[in-house]
Structure formats: structure tokens, C-alpha cells
């Protein structure tokens, strides 16, 4: 069984700052990674995904993530955050025919 670790439960930044939300996983095989965002009171929405190719992938609203096989990581980044980016972010891992495993989420607060 693979595990997904999001080491920061809460991150607080100011509007215009850059941010990195960390995701580490434990699995050695072929892997599919994605990030989802959840605004308060809503369901999760897809942000971006990686399966193969360029390890840096672009998502919606200026988000990007970088896959590192050596570090078993898939960190999410944004160069300049907006107050509307305040939400909970979930990293998800899927391998082969298995189901998704989600991290426990990182709550991002952006101070205007």
C-alpha cells in the first residue's frame, strides 16, 4: 500500500508571495500523481497531474508541480498567490489499476 505524506498541515503566506506545498509518497513502481484544491464547503477540484514526460507540469491558475523520482516527491508551487488561493490542497497518488490515495491535505491561508 502506498502512502502519501503532506508534511505541512497549515501554511500561511501574504498575497503576492510564492508558495510551495510539499507532497511525498512511498511507492517504487509506475505512478500517477495529481493535485486537487478544495475551497471551504465545496468538493475537490482538479489542479494538475503527472504521469510521464516533462517532470514540471502546469495547471490552472498559475500552479505548477515538479515530480522528482529520486526524492519521491511531487511539490506544488505558485510564484505569486492571490487571496482566492486560500483553500485546502490535496495530493493524490494512483498506481496501475489501484485506486487513488489522498494525503491529509494542506490548508493554505493567503493574507491580503
Amino acid at each position: 500500500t502506498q502512502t502519501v505524506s503532506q508534511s505541512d498541515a497549515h501554511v500561511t503566506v501574504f498575497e503576492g508571495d510564492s508558495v510551495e506545498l510539499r507532497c511525498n509518497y512511498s511507492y517504487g513502481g509506475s505512478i500517477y500523481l495529481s493535485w486537487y484544491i478544495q475551497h471551504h464547503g465545496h468538493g475537490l477540484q482538479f489542479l494538475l497531474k503527472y504521469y510521464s514526460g516533462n517532470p514540471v507540469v502546469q495547471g490552472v491558475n498559475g500552479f505548477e508541480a515538479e515530480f522528482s523520482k529520486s526524492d519521491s516527491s511531487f511539490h506544488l508551487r505558485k510564484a505569486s498567490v492571490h487571496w482566492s488561493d486560500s483553500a485546502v490542497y490535496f495530493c493524490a497518488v494512483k498506481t496501475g489499476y489501484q485506486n487513488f490515495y489522498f494525503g491529509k491535505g494542506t490548508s493554505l491561508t493567503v493574507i491580503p
Partner: protein
Amino acid sequence: EAAVTQSPRNKVAVTGGKVTLSCNQTNNHNNMYWYRQDTGHGLRLIHYSYGAGSTEKGDIPDGYKASRPSQENFSLILELATPSQTSVYFCASGDGWGPVAETLYFGSGTRLTVL
């Protein structure tokens, strides 16, 4: 235009009662999922389905049943609700399977309280 719709949005049930949570999707996806979300646990998979007539157990199926009567509808059934099943439940449809990259589309959730 919401493609995954859950009902009800909120539900209060009594211990021992039967609860049915409904989910409808207009994405025409074969795969559908039921998750529960609890503080400190993230999302945990309860049941899933590959298509009409199929249901499979996820990671925490005990105390839950699922039904997929059609491509569009996927229900989660609590035959004898318990307070430990108080949670927020999310339904999702998925656009792929296996090694193909899959994107999940979530409903807005059902907040269930069992007294």
C-alpha cells in the same frame, strides 16, 4: 452545469436508522467513487464502481453498501447508521482507469450527522 450532483446536501439521522446518499453524474464516466472526509484523515475510499451493475469495496467498506443501477447514478447506503459514520461524504466520477491518467470530478458533498 454541475456534472456530479449529490443529494441531500445535509442529513441528520438517528442511530440504527437507514440512510441513502445519492449521486448523479452527467459526465458519462464509467468509474464512480464514494469517499468520506474526516479531519485528520483526508479522503478515504468506501466503495467504487466500474459501471452499471458493478460495485467494489474500497478501503473502509464496513457498515456501507453501494448500488449502481445505471451509468448516471451511484448510491451509498447505511443500513444501520452509527455515530461513527458522522462525516462529510463525497461522490466522484473518473474519466479513466488503469495506467491511463485519471481525473476525478467531485460533487459538493453531503454532510451526515448521526445522533
